[in-house]
């Protein structure tokens, strides 16, 4: 795969570079500050949270809020481990299924010309508009009619077939040379085998990106409108409930927020180079 090289500037000056750095630095502080603030607040002991004016550092940092978070969560109706189990299993099932069926479908759309392929392709591009936060009510009606409300299915099934991952994979596969596929086909491999044994090893950045994006989405699943049973709730729902308790639990709320934000951020950081390579094929051309 071609490496992305840093582009040499023809025009532009050192002064310009410094100016750009300053502008980005200033904006960057605005972007980072809430994260910094959350972390600082999460390690402040309770009395420091209510000092006026609020301090930008913790005088006496403590892990109490985190300990308390797990303890408070342990006193909930349902053991905390249940929410962790729910969130982790939802994230794993959604991500794995999404990558598996999304990649297969992407191969068919990118590499096979069949009656209806043009229509299916444009349907995917159009549906990038319709994320689950806007189709929620309509999806609820469909799920209610199928008897899925308040079941594990409601936590998983609506979130698997999201068009974004399929779209990115299709774009990336588009640049795999036809000759590679022809060769495999002549050797007698069917489309399914060609996809998984020949093409997939060559599109690593794309499936890594699918994994990361799907995980980010799945980790945030609350499915609040589809789930009422306490035992089926996920971590974000519970953290949200603790945060909603307001100032009395401010420290806990911050600790919860910090715990929730770490997995998606780390996941992105690990795969950043591959994701950027995938995104270079993200353009919509039709």
């Amino acid at each position, binding site marked *: 795969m071609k490496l992305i090289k840093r582009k040499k*500037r023809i025009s*532009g000056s050192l002064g310009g570079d410094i100016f750009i750095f300053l502008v980005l630095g200033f904006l960057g502080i605005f972007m980072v500050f809430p994260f910094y603030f959350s972390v600082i607040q999460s390690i402040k002991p309770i009395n420091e949270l209510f000092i006026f004016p609020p301090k930008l550092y913790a005088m006496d940092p403590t892990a109490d809020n985190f300990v308390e978070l797990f303890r408070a969560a342990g006193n909930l109706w349902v053991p905390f481990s249940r929410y962790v189990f729910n969130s982790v299993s939802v994230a794993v099932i959604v991500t794995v299924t999404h990558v598996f069926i999304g990649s297969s479908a992407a191969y068919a759309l990118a590499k096979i010309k069949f009656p209806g392929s043009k229509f*299916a392709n444009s349907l995917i591009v159009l549906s990038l508009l319709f994320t689950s936060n806007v*189709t*929620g*009510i309509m999806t609820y009606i469909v799920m209610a009619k199928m008897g899925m409300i308040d079941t594990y299915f409601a936590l998983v099934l609506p979130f698997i077939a999201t068009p974004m991952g399929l779209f990115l994979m299709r774009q990336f596969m588009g640049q795999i040379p036809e000759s590679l596929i022809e060769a495999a086909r002549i050797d007698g491999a069917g489309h*399914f085998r060609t996809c998984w044994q020949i093409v997939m090893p060559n599109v690593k950045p794309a499936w890594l990106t699918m994994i990361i994006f799907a995980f980010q989405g799945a980790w945030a699943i609350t499915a609040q409108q589809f789930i009422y049973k306490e035992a089926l709730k996920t971590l974000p729902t519970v953290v949200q409930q603790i945060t909603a308790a307001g100032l009395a639990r401010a420290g806990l*709320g911050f600790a919860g927020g910090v715990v929730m934000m770490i997995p998606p951020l780390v996941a992105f950081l690990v795969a950043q180079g591959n994701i950027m390579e995938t995104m270079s094929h*993200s353009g*919509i051309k039709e």
Partner: protein
Amino acid sequence: MSTVKSDATPAGTVKQSKFKNTLNEMKRDASAYGMLAPFFILFAIFTIIPVTMSLPIGFTSFNMVQFPKFVGLSNFYTLILEDDVFLIALKNTLTFAVLTGPISYIACFVIAWLINSLGRTLKTIFTFVFYAPSIASNIFIIWQLMFSGDTYGFVNAWLMQLGIINSPIQWLTDTKYMMGVVILVQLWISLGAGFLAMIAGLQGIDKSQYEAGAIEGIKNRLQEMLYITLPCMGPQLLFAAVMQITASFTAGHVGQMLTGFPSTDYATHTINTHAFDYGFIRYEMGYASAVSFLLFLMMIVANNLIRRVLSKYIDD
């Protein structure tokens, strides 16, 4: 099944043989359908059917218990002529669409463009910094505590410390400020996949284009951007536009979390919140469907407009 032989007189059977041809092609490509099926079945159930059903259900009165009752256009009449809250929601949604949409879109491009002129390490760091808010789960809740209406809210505390204000401002319940705060937070989380696409698109531009540009008399970075960079990035610009349209038209969640539901005087109420209200709180699914349908329609119209505008940059 028809029994037309393939070598029969072509004139009379053109239509049938074309149909047969398609059938044969479909048989030949059976594996393609097999590979598409699992994804497309789920996709149909949870996206296509919900979106397309919004219109027919919008014509009914439906409470989830009884069978939907056909009521013609009355939901749509009520929405536009009688529902004052919907008009507020419409106004707010359009505010997000014409304000945060374009601002975040331009921010995506400008920040990506600035980042792209940095060295490798700084580029990686800044990409992460600007992208982080959009993926960090519900961390935007933090803004609720920064703009909290008492003196423990950071913003109030500092403004009072600096002597700019004397008493705390009710940022999240005073209608004068609510929309401003929500717009700020909406912008904070708006640099998502579209932003990444723009950085990647900028990286992918062939550097010989810039060399050619320098020979042709391009003097500074601004000219370089207008005459070389933008025309090279059509497809990425379109992808990012779709992302920003989705985000700005479906705004509502952030406002709902920060200013409560319903917000004071519906100051941050959007169409999406309105649909949520009628769907999940009042269980008037027919009405909620009509609201959703109008939102889908607006998004598709915006999408087509953007496509028309950007089409000159997309040549393939």
